[in-house]
């Protein structure tokens, strides 16, 4: 019931933006970490796989080309200076057809006169760098290059020297193979690796989320325990012993709770000790004064007056002691409400009947006639009595008491014909030891506690109290106590505050 200020703080914490929460930050960190790590891993895997695949394919091709070149060289022995030019063309045609061309490789021969022989290629298909390398004297040269259609190919050139047919000059045998197929394999691999990177960053985020949640789970338990303690349950203990790192925290927390509990207990004991110490002499006084009062007639006039004074101030003193004890109980959080269900109209009639004030009419609408409330009857009666006495002291007496049920709440209103309460005082009069104006000390029992107790008791009941001007246009103050009607209770229930 008690709305602790820190509970409001808690709500503010929850209201902050998501990324300001520890959970979100840990999750994000894990996600970024996982993304970085998996990108590096994927990139490295891709490069390695690419190199390996290309090296395999190129190595295979290189061997193939050297083998084919040897074949061509051997076949060239069959050519003689007498061979006709057309026959040479057919020779190459047959030779190319007879060579194995796995993976769709294509052959071309560069003749000493710069002419070329091929089934499918032409001179421009031979990239310049490889020609340069052969000319520079390399026996076997290789070249990865991009074709006009931007697909990657790999070409190997082998110089075949001392061909008798060409008068001892050499020819160059080139064979190229397309790596496009490999490219598409690598493309798929790239997609797969990117997918893996994305999935692993998601997994990282999830891992981060769950581990952060696990790590933060004790925070939830701590806040639950703190809330239970704020709610008055000082037997709450935090058990995080299972985790060595957190057991330090739970030990400290439990020690704190014990210390607070000890302090409250000490204050409660102090209250009850003081209460006992004050009550004993008051009891003796009350009983003795009563004897005196009964025998008043037999006393001299002066003594009678003294007895009256004694009796009146004894009552005043008793009220003060009761109020102070109630205040210290409130301070110690040691008030226990005795909740029962009763009818409002009946209750207010009885409250007014027991105050010494003149007859005050209670007004309420017919619809509210049978409305009941669950509250501490004795304390609510004190609230009403204090308001009525306040009206008597400062407002020329209460002029009307009314109540109105609004939803699940009730507003009980006490009006007076006094000067009203200036706006600047409307909060402060509910503070302790505050009184409006000069007040008449001699006649009142007020020590400035009455309205503060009204406010405290209203708060303990989950309600509030405030003062305004009268709403009917007349002069005077209007005190409004708003309380929840509460739920049905069958027996008188005790509620710690």
């Amino acid at each position, binding site marked *: 019931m008690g709305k602790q200020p820190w509970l409001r703080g808690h709500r503010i914490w929850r209201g902050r933006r998501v990324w300001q929460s520890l959970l979100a930050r840990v999750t994000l960190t894990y996600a970024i970490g996982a993304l970085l790590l998996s990108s590096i891993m994927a990139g490295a895997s891709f490069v390695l796989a690419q190199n390996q695949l290309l090296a395999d394919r190129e190595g295979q091709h290189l061997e193939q080309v050297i083998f084919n070149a040897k074949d061509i060289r051997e076949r060239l022995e069959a050519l003689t200076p007498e061979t006709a030019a057309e026959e040479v063309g057919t020779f190459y045609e047959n030779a190319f057809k007879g060579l194995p061309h796995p993976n769709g490789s294509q052959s071309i021969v560069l003749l000493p006169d710069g002419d070329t022989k091929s089934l499918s290629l032409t001179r421009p298909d031979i990239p310049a760098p490889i020609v340069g390398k052969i000319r520079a004297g390399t026996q076997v040269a290789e070249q990865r290059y991009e074709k006009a259609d931007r697909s990657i190919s790999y070409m190997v050139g082998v110089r075949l020297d001392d061909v008798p047919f060409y008068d001892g000059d050499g020819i160059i045998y080139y064979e190229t193979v397309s790596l496009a197929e490999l490219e598409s394999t690598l493309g798929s691999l790239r997609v797969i690796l990117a997918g893996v990177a994305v999935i692993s960053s998601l997994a990282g985020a999830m891992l981060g989320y769950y581990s952060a949640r696990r790590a933060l789970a004790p925070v939830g338990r701590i806040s639950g325990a703190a809330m239970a303690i704020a709610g008055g349950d000082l037997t709450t203990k935090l058990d995080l012993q299972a985790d060595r790192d957190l057991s330090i925290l739970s030990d400290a927390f439990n020690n704190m709770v014990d210390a607070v509990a000890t302090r409250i207990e000490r204050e409660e004991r102090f209250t009850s000790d003081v*209460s*006992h110490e004050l*009550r*004993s002499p008051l009891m*003796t006084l009350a009983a*003795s004064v009563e*004897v005196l009062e009964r025998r008043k007639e037999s006393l001299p006039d002066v003594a009678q007056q003294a007895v009256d004074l004694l009796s009146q101030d004894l009552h005043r003193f008793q009220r003060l002691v009761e109020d102070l004890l109630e205040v210290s109980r409130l301070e110690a959080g040691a008030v226990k409400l005795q909740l029962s269900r009763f009818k409002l109209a009946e209750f207010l009639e009885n409250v007014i009947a027991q105050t010494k004030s003149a007859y005050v009419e209670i007004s309420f609408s017919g619809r509210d006639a049978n409305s009941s409330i669950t509250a501490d*009857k004795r304390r609510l*009666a004190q609230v009403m009595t204090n308001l009525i006495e306040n009206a008597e002291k400062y407002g020329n007496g209460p002029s009307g008491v009314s109540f109105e049920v609004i939803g699940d709440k009730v507003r009980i209103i006490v009006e007076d014909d006094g000067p009203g309460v200036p706006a600047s005082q409307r909060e402060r009069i509910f503070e302790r030891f505050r009184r409006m104006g000069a007040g008449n000390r001699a006649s009142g029992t007020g020590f400035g506690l009455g309205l503060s107790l009204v406010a405290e008791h209203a708060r303990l009941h989950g309600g509030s109290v405030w003062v305004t001007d009268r709403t009917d246009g007349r002069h005077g103050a209007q005190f409004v106590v708003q309380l929840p009607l509460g739920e049905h209770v*069958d027996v008188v229930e005790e509620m710690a505050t």
Partner: protein
Amino acid sequence: MGTKILTVEDDERIRLAVTLALEEEGWDVIEADSGERALETFASSPADVVLIDIMLPGIDGFEVCRSIRRGSDVPIIMVTARADTHDVVAGLEAGADDYLTKPFAPKELSARIRAMLRRARSTEPGDLERIKVGELEISADEGMVLKNGTELHLTKTEFKLLVELASQPGKVFSREVLLERVWGYDYFGDGRLVDVHVRRLRTKVEDDPASPRYVVTSRGLGYKLQP
């Protein structure tokens, strides 16, 4: 011989002042300054009403109350320091009929004593008719309750409560009404008196006090005797 009140109070000054005031009201007062002394005194000369301070050195007020209750249905009033402690319920459960908080006015105590000594009212004065509810047979005039012909031992207050409920079987009595009629309180009496006495009454008249057949709770309204 007037009505005898046994006051058990360890504080001599309070005891003296209360005795003076009670004697002024016309009661005979027997004093006891400890629980032990109170039990001895009560055994030798039973009082009509016992007033016990809960905070006593040696055996405390609750124990004194329980010991007396084992052999007597005498009205017992507890004196506690505070109304909102568990002491009140504990005292009532120990068998007390009513309680007062210190400091109380002896006039108020006298009013309480008078209320306790008042006999359970019968529907009509001199009416010897018995009220029968189920297996229960209540005779207000004789101060007796029979269940299946066996007499039940109720305290005076439990009996008054039962008779009040039995005066109109089936009618719901609010706590306030019962407090006024049984204890003589005004509207602001402590409802726990009724609750604890109903609980005590149930342990005596019900077969299963956890699911009462006779003294039943009427949700949010009070109690009634189920005909």
